[in-house]
């Protein structure tokens, strides 16, 4: 059997284990996502989408089970190794943009590349390339608080893409955007997925967003209730 790019094996997450108000967020999830996929995790609020994305990205630990990303067992790494994994292999796009407020858009995009050790010239070239694709070249010298929500999210996508990760995890990236901006952003992300070959997994409960996905996974009460390749 061929191994997938991202394998999620029997992953469970229980908050406050052993206490009176124990909460099962995920129950024995099994999923495989192939390289280059544009996958969406959908489901109602509290279904476990964000928890699963956090575990895949090493931002949170699983109570049991394992996540294997391109042969690396994410759930077995220590904090330092997880930092390295996030820096070199994963790009994050958060619902609340989460740009570093004291850095300009350019510096935010450059930040992860600098962490990876890239030189200034290489950073500049890559920033221009990504900013061109996301139509934010004119915003590069602005601080996040001078940008609209849609602009900030595009900068956040640029930051996630610029470091050339193997995987982008986007947690409800369009939740704070109007429908036009949301559609624009999804088109741009789809284009990046095709151009750069980056695997993108995002969570959403917006039907417009879900309709763009090639692989749709539906969660409910911490369990996978549907898992299908759309196109």
């Amino acid at each position: 059997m061929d191994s997938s790019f991202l394998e999620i094996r029997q992953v469970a997450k229980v908050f406050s284990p052993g206490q009176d108000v124990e909460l099962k967020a995920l129950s024995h999830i099994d999923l495989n996502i192939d390289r280059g996929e544009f996958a969406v995790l959908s489901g109602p609020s509290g279904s476990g989408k964000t928890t699963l994305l956090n575990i895949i990205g090493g931002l949170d630990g699983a109570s049991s089970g394992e996540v294997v990303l391109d042969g690396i067992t994410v759930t077995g790494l220590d904090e330092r190794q997880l930092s390295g994994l996030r820096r070199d292999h994963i790009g994050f796009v958060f619902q609340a943009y989460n740009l570093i407020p004291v850095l300009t858009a350019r510096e935010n995009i450059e930040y992860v590349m600098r962490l990876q050790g890239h030189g200034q010239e290489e950073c500049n070239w890559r920033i221009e390339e990504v900013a061109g694709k996301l139509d934010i070249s004119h915003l590069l010298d602005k601080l996040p608080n001078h940008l609209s929500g849609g602009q900030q999210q595009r900068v956040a996508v640029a930051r996630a893409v610029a470091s050339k990760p193997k995987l982008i995890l986007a947690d409800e990236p369009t939740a704070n955007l109007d429908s036009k901006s949301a559609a624009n952003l999804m088109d741009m992300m789809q284009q990046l997925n095709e151009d750069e070959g980056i695997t993108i997994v995002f969570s959403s409960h917006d039907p417009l967003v879900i309709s763009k996905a090639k692989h749709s996974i539906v969660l409910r009460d911490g369990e996978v209730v549907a898992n299908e390749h759309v196109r």
Partner: protein
Amino acid sequence: MFRVLLRIALASLGRRLSRSMLVVLMIAMSLWGLLFMEGIYDGMTEQFIDNAIRSDSGDISIFAKGYRLDPGLEKAIERFDEIEHVLTADNRIRSHVRRLRQDGLIATAHYSRNAAIYGVELEAEERHGRLASYLREGVYDFGKKGRGVILGSRLAAKMKVGLGKKIILSAQNRDNDVSALSLRVTGILKTNNMALDENAVFIGIDKARELLLLPAGASQISIMVHDKEEVPAVQKQLAAQFANLDVMAWNSLYPALHQGREMMEVFNLITSLLVFCVAGLGIFGVMLVSVLERLREFGIMLAIGTTFQEIRTIVFVESFILGLSGYCCGSLLGGLTLFYFYQYGLDLTMFSAGLDAFGMDAITYALIRPSYFLTALAAVTGATLISVLVPLRILQKARPIEAINKI
């Protein structure tokens, strides 16, 4: 990468500019106070010591064996020429003077008091310890016939004598008889060496020999060296060379002043500790609030691949910028203040009556020592390092996802 981390640290400090400025100001002011106190107090102590050395002990003094415990004319230093030859040949020694001392009585028509009679050579004393600079009234001269006398200021006040007044000086001579001289006051000295100001009566050494019937010899030879660091070595060598004499450094002759200097070192250390605490608490407060306010920001940075070590660098850089800015401002301010008081002195004339009682100069000249700045730098650096330990501990415990979810 450090450039980006530095940029984040600077921008974060700039974002909380008034708070950052307050901490810098707090460190600067406490440092300024520290430097001022160290410089002035050390200046006072060194002035005490300098007065004692210049007016009396020199850096080293030679006495006849046992003279210090039981002074008397029979314990005068003999073979002065031989000693002088050795002192003149030693190029570490800047100058030396001989003095003839005997306890006696000073009297006017109305008052009389115990006095310490010093037979001195005024020109040699001037070259040796600039004795003339202590002259407050009159002239630095015993007159053509040597019948003048220079009195300590407190003694003159207690005897109620002024310039030109006649006094009778009497003392036991070498034949154990009482001799007396009638002299006129030509000058009044204020050395701030209380022992001298209270008791000293300076007359010409020839006049003293005439009074005491002692044609040769001296009670004390006072020596100044070029380099104060050489005092122990010169003292040790002279003590070995003149085993039949007592060769004593100034700190043995004035142990209280020596202890005062050591106490001042402890005082300076305590003051440095206070600066350490002020700087430490100031930076701790700012950094703790800064870290707690920015937990989410740090969480984002951790989430996108920043290591804890890189975040720690940011926190340290911020702390060092605060500490070093405070240090630079405080050092500059303190250094300039000390330089002013080093040049012009701190005029405490309005407290002169009180200061007089302690034998202190009304004008105190500050000292400037590199050690003040180095100790302060160590204190501020230590404070910047220690003050961020708790904020860093909080950061280390925070998981990225928990930190991001902090609003």
